[in-house]
């Protein structure tokens, strides 16, 4: 289906242009910039909802396609389109951006217009990543994404922000250079820059393995997977709340998305050959990182490590496919695992955003992220405590919240691959609950720990609005995940059929 008018372009460029407008509006009337930013974000979100309402559920084909030549001599096209895999992530992006704008309303007093502008531009670029169907266009958006985030951390970040930004930049940039080489190689092989053409490109096993490793370098850093995860805690700690939210809720998903859009369909045989590597890294993420999260003293670091552990479920869900496919006696579970990984991505978008916003609420009041500086927050902030406990439970995968759905699906699917995979994955039930609830115990419960806690004010209406929106999202997805499953079903089924057939 091609749209009557370019909805995707609108969702990409409206926030980018809106962001430039906000930036040029300057800080003379900060409230004007804030309102302008909010209006742009809300409009973008509403526009992106058209993608849902007009979405054709029963096809895996790309929808809302736009395809115009861009650099003709290299067959590079401005080619956009979405399927059931990218569409939910785009709506997640536009939804979270609104919340980030609202959350930064009062807190950001230093150059607020540029702050808002950075997030709007970031939003457009991220939507571009999710909707690009041309490899070069994808790469441009992919790298462009680094700039606003670099600025967000570098300008509005904490005291050690320079180390964090450089680490963040070099880590991710190093990974993407390998991806660029792989993309160029495939361009020479196929004479096309279209990602969909890459999907059908015949490649030998050695070629595939090299390309797979190149993609892995890019995506593993983004996800992030162990052992290339150490930039994330540093980036989170130094980033302002909004930056952490975007980082955790959206940017990490781009890595997971990359596996589905590039690695699996382009190099299915290499994926099959190296699935042990990814599964091993995923399980290390779930188990190893879970224990590391347990001993963190800094709330943001703890949630950052928790993010890595939760993202382990995503990659695990994607790559157990090959073990299940290799077992003739098991006839299902591949789709379940992939869908589970996708649900986990969307759910983690909500929950990690909420957790970082909760820490932000505390940080704005106390200017500390150290767990030991808190204690007994419930006494002075009962409504906030209710939200925090709710999101903590969602983070621990309580059924009825979205956090349960993806983990459950991946555990059920991995049982079909191997008992011990499911066993190791399910340890998150214990360890995940342990690090989350221990933090809640030390921060929220107990008697008032010190005078600073005694002076805390409960959340205001704006903060309540943000947290309530996320709470509703977490509950709805937890109680009724079927609509999301339906959106993705045709695309995931198509992908599974595609990877089941060797390319050699």
């Amino acid at each position, binding site marked *: 289906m091609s749209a009557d008018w370019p909805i995707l372009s609108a969702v990409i460029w409206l926030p980018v242009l809106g962001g430039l407008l906000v930036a040029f509006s300057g800080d003379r009337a900060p409230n004007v910039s804030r309102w302008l930013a909010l209006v742009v974000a809300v409009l973008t979100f509403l526009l992106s909802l058209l993608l849902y309402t007009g979405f054709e559920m029963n096809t895996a084909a790309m929808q809302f396609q736009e395809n115009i030549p861009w650099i003709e001599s290299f067959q590079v096209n401005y080619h956009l389109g979405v399927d059931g895999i990218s569409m939910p992530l785009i709506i997640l992006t536009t939804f979270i951006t609104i919340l980030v704008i609202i959350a930064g309303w009062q807190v950001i007093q230093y150059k607020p217009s540029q702050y808002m502008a950075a997030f709007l531009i970031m939003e457009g670029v991220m939507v571009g990543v999710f909707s690009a169907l041309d490899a070069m266009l994808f790469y441009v958006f992919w790298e462009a994404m680094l700039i606003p985030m670099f600025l967000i951390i570098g300008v509005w970040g904490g005291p050690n922000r320079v180390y964090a930004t450089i680490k963040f930049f070099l880590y991710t940039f190093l990974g993407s250079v390998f991806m660029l080489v792989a993309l160029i190689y495939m361009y020479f092989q196929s004479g096309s820059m279209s990602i969909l053409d890459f999907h059908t490109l015949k490649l030998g096993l050695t070629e595939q393995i090299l390309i797979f490793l190149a993609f892995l370098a890019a995506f593993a850093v983004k996800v992030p997977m162990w*052992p290339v995860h*150490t930039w994330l805690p540093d980036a989170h700690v130094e980033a302002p709340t909004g930056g952490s939210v975007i980082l955790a809720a959206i940017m990490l998903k781009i890595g997971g998305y990359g596996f589905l859009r590039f690695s699996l369909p382009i190099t299915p045989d290499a994926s099959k050959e190296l699935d042990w590597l990814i599964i091993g890294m995923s399980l290390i993420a779930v188990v190893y990182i879970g224990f590391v*999260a347990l001993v963190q003293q800094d709330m943001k670091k703890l949630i950052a490590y928790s993010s890595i552990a939760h993202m382990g479920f995503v990659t695990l869900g994607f790559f157990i496919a090959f073990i299940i496919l290799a077992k003739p006696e098991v006839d299902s*579970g591949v789709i379940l695992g992939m869908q589970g990984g996708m649900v986990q991505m969307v759910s983690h978008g909500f929950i990690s955003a909420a957790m970082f916003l909760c820490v932000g609420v505390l940080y704005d009041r106390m200017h500390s992220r150290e767990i030991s500086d808190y204690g007994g927050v*419930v006494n002075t902030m009962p409504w906030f405590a209710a939200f925090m406990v709710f999101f903590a439970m969602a983070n621990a995968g309580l059924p009825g919240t979205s956090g349960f759905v993806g983990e459950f699906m991946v555990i059920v699917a991995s049982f079909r691959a191997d008992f011990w995979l499911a066993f190791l994955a*399910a340890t998150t039930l*214990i360890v995940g609950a342990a690090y989350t609830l221990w933090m809640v115990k030390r921060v929220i419960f107990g008697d008032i720990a010190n005078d600073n806690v005694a002076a805390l004010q409960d959340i205001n209406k704006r903060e309540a609005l943000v947290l309530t929106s996320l709470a509703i999202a977490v509950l709805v997805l937890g109680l009724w995940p079927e609509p999301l499953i339906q959106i993705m079903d045709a695309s995931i089924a198509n992908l599974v059929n595609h990877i089941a057939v060797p390319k050699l």
Partner: protein
Amino acid sequence: MEDMKTIYLILVLAPLAGSVIAGLFRNQIGKAGAHWVTILGVGVSFLLSAYVFWQHVMNGAPVFNENLYTWMVVDGLEMHVGFLVDNLTAMMITVVTFVSLMVHIYTVGYMAHEDGYQRFFSYISLFTFSMLMLVMSNNFLQLFFGWEAVGLVSYLLIGFYYKRETAIFANMKAFLVNRVGDFGFILGIAAIAMYFNSLDYAQVFSAAPDKAGETISIWGDSQWSLMTVICILLFIGAMGKSAQMPLHVWLPDSMEGPTPISALIHAATMVTAGIFMVARTSPLFELSETALSFVLIIGATTAFFMGLIGIVQNDIKRVVAYSTLSQLGYMVAALGASAYAAGLFHLMTHAFFKALLFLAAGSVIIGMHHNQDIRNMGGLRKYMKITWITALLGSLALIGFPGFSGFFSKDAIIEAVGYSQITGATYAHWLLVAGVFVTALYSFRMYFLVFHGKGPRDEHAKDHLKESPAVVTVPLILLAIPSVFIGWFAIEPMLFGDFFKGVLHVASAHDTLGEVGKTYHDQIGFISHGMMMLPFWLAMAGLAVAWYVYLMKPSIADGIRSRFDWLYRLLDRKYGFDEFNQAVFAGGSLFIGRLLWNVGDKTVIDGIAVNGSARSVGVLAQAVRWVQSGYLYHYAIAMILGLLGLLFWFVVR
């Protein structure tokens, strides 16, 4: 059918509505508003449950099994939210809503002067909703939802006094220990999903016999019976929720919560969810004798050894808590002996008399101004007549005094286990028989120390001791009635009639209750038969010893205690489970976490790999910079050396 569906929906959602209103609008509706709205919700729920019970049990309404909505359909696996209402469900919802209603009313008195009054009502109504979702589910997924939701509310309520360090430690411990159980449970569900491709009870149970012979390999080439693996995994979940050894450690600590919830959640309803689950899945358990043996041995071990600890406790609530652990062990043992009906029967009688005992303990605690040490009590019968009489009735029911409800249910369990032929049955039988003595001893030790003897040993208590208000005593009386009589009326239909026909599945080789039934004629006959058996005399002996040792000659107790000091210390430390878990699991996890963080993340990855490569780039740059000195004669000599080198190479070649 449609109007029944509406009834079930209202039945489940009424407490949820009450909870949401009391929780979100606590300031608007005030204290009275909160208790009225939640009592109304649970009251509606109870009346509808009674109606449902009437329809199903008396009028033989057909089994209701319908899905409400589709949770998700993925990869051929359908998951729904729906209700299954048969006689088992009808019994469970009636018990749950009745006890819950009593506890709601009681709370009005118990919590009258506490902070967080509205919050408390909101929680217990939320609990009632979750528990109803659990028992009314028609599939494993919703069962797990209810399972974890009751765990959440239990967490919130144990930590209700969030300022108390012990309370917030206990609630985290409870949640985590339950999560260990749920870890097994979710793997069990995953196994069912894999081999049955469904989570719907009816579909799974009807396909189960065909899978009885299947095996799966878990470790190397050794083959395990599929049913054994599934059932043991599911039962690990039950061990967490129903506090069976070694996952029992959270239940005694859960007494940090206010007393009404100890009665509702940690005695009458939530902790019996494991028993309910195993009984519900009896078509699976019947296919694995190994799993049944496992269940039987765990249950009997818990029943005896947890009862022993009850003897040395001095906190009134902890005595009752260990008693609950022990009684849950009896129920689990019944399940292991395939006497599911007896386990459920004991679940029901226990719900009434244990809720009664907890609420009576709460009444005593009110009278003692929150002093919970039974060594400070004594002679309370003079001050609190209704509490005294009802507590006596509850205690008699607990020790299985002939004619009381507990007598019928406990005797049925012991006899059924006696008939069991599976591995471990003899061991279990003797522990359960011996447990009767222990039960009588700890129950009446507490009873005599609290209600008899000379006045309260705490002199100050005399000034304020008085009977609790009617909102407290009326629920006691209302709970005392079924505690005494329900056994008499229910034994015939539940154990030997067709109350559970089509619900519970018992293989003919395991039909222990059938053996018991062969000698059963009527209640009188059952009582007179029981009075000739060992357990009855053990109960009487326990009662007599308690009377003599704790009331007549307290010096004996001290003598025994110093004589068997090692035993006392062992019991007082609860066999050291807490110390072990704290050192090995909690300490071990933190040790591993620190090790991985400091060595793995900080030293190896960040220190050597990341910053190391950054440093090596720096070092290389330094080296190269030395060459780029900027002096012309350096470059000149380099050129000359290069030319010489080239010449040399040409010549030599």
